[in-house]
């Protein structure tokens, strides 16, 4: 069994003057300090990627920079699913005995390190180079296509409520990128980006970093344990998606839950990838945390609020805590650990015994699910 024994999370937002390696270092130092460990006690290192610091060997670039000499190093690229994929890999390596204490770290100055145009253009390149990119789509356009289909089948008026909830949560979270209160009307009146998605349906581009220490279970070192981890990859390009209403999320989550030997009703906290309001609605519904077409309505009714039946992304998620690339989803796990430890301050919920985390990469094409059990 593996445990998360340390978390490090920087503020997200505009953090000028900090590079990818600076942000990774800050998060890593915080995670080591939180875990009560020195650099020499880390034997494994897993990193993601950074669009502002593209490198063939980011894990060992970081190892040298930060002063680590791991016996295992690995950089992973799986788009938005990377953060949880790093955690799953660390979990598997610890379980296999290949490493004992793994530092998982990501960071990127995605906002300050490049122009917003450059960020949007870089991200748009995930489209197919021949059959999609020449048409000038953006990431919001791919998700706009998904949202149009959702609107056609279920109606989409309520999904703005998810943005409102994430903003309310962020307002109670130190370090959140966007904290100004919004209403559903503000979301629906915000600037059109890619119909039917508007500006406030989209997460911001942020600077930030996040890190964890994941290690083999040791009674002397408590922390939430990773009880289940699963993935699903159904396609790469939106043109090749088998469906724009059913993705691999349900399958991935079901396998992670089965591995943990628990069922969805046992889950008391949800940490779900929310790059767009539509992403969050579709993932909640496909996983089974909301009926089809009802995620926005449940958010309005308080079901997903901190005081509700299924607290969701209590730090504000990608939509409002912010999105710095790989570290974006890692903030969801950092928050889950804080909630389990009772360290979530003004937004603390009853410490959940079990949480489900889900990340997606590409255009809902790559899925990673984790089940975390409170080990306090």
């Amino acid at each position, binding site marked *: 069994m593996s445990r998360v024994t340390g978390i490090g999370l920087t503020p997200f937002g505009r953090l000028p003057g900090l590079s990818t390696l600076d942000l990774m270092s800050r998060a890593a130092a915080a995670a080591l300090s939180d875990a009560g460990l020195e650099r020499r006690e880390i034997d494994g290192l897993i990193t993601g990627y950074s669009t502002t610091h593209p490198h063939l060997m980011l894990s060992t670039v970081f190892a040298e920079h930060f002063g680590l000499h791991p016996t295992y190093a690995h950089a992973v690229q799986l788009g938005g699913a990377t953060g949880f994929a790093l955690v799953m890999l660390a979990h598997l390596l610890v379980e296999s005995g290949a490493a004992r204490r793994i530092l998982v770290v990501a960071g990127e100055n995605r906002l300050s390190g490049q122009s917003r*145009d450059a960020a*949007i*253009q870089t991200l*748009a390149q995930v489209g*197919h180079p*021949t*059959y*999609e990119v*020449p*048409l*000038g*789509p*953006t990431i*919001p*356009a791919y998700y*706009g*296509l*998904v*949202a*149009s*289909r959702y609107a*056609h089948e279920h109606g989409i008026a309520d999904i703005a409520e998810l943005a409102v909830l994430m903003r309310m949560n962020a307002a109670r979270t130190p370090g959140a990128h966007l904290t100004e209160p919004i209403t559903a009307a503000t979301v629906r009146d915000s*600037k*059109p*980006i*890619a*119909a*039917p*998605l508007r500006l406030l349906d989209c997460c911001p581009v942020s600077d930030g970093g996040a890190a964890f220490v994941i290690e083999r279970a040791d009674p002397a070192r408590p922390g939430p344990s990773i009880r289940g981890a699963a993935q699903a990859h159904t396609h790469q*390009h*939106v*043109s*090749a998606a088998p469906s*724009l209403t059913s993705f691999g999320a349900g399958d991935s989550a079901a396998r992670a839950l089965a591995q943990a030997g628990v069922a969805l009703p046992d889950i008391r906290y949800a940490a779900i990838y929310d790059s767009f309001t539509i992403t969050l609605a579709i993932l909640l519904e496909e996983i089974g945390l909301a009926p089809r077409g009802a995620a926005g309505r449940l958010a309005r009714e308080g079901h997903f609020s901190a005081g509700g039946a299924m607290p969701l992304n209590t730090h504000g998620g990608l939509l409002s805590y912010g999105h710095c690339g790989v570290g974006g989803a890692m903030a969801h796990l950092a928050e889950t650990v804080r909630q389990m430890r009772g360290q979530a301050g003004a937004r603390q919920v009853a410490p959940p015994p079990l949480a489900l985390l889900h990340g997606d990469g590409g255009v809902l094409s790559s899925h990673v699910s984790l089940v975390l059990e409170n080990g306090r």
Partner: protein
Amino acid sequence: MRPDGDPPDWTQSSAGKGPAGKGSAGLALARCRACGHVQYLRRPFCPACGGEDLAVEPASGRGTVYAVTAVARAPSPDLQAFAPYGIALVDAEEGFRFMAHCPAEGVAIGAPVRTTFRAFGAGLVPFVTPEDLS
């Protein structure tokens, strides 16, 4: 191991195999002669069965809108001049799905469409319009 015919790049009008004949822009599909699988995102083999015997055929360009968006914020300053532009996913009558431009307004999911090509950015892109407007 190229499939027979020219590589399907409708962004270059000289390389297409359109209804107007070789040299005009057009949509094409590749059908596996072993298993019948139809692919649009072309590889030199069949992703369903691995077969390398593919028949490249021109597509009619007729289909049904599966999803549609309108891009207000283009990915680059040079393309922003075209915004807003519509982008649709279209289910072609031959059984594949393709991405195309469309009018930024007035294209509904389920609408039957036909395909022409229009200049966009550095080349040509497929452009679908509802049948009842053609």
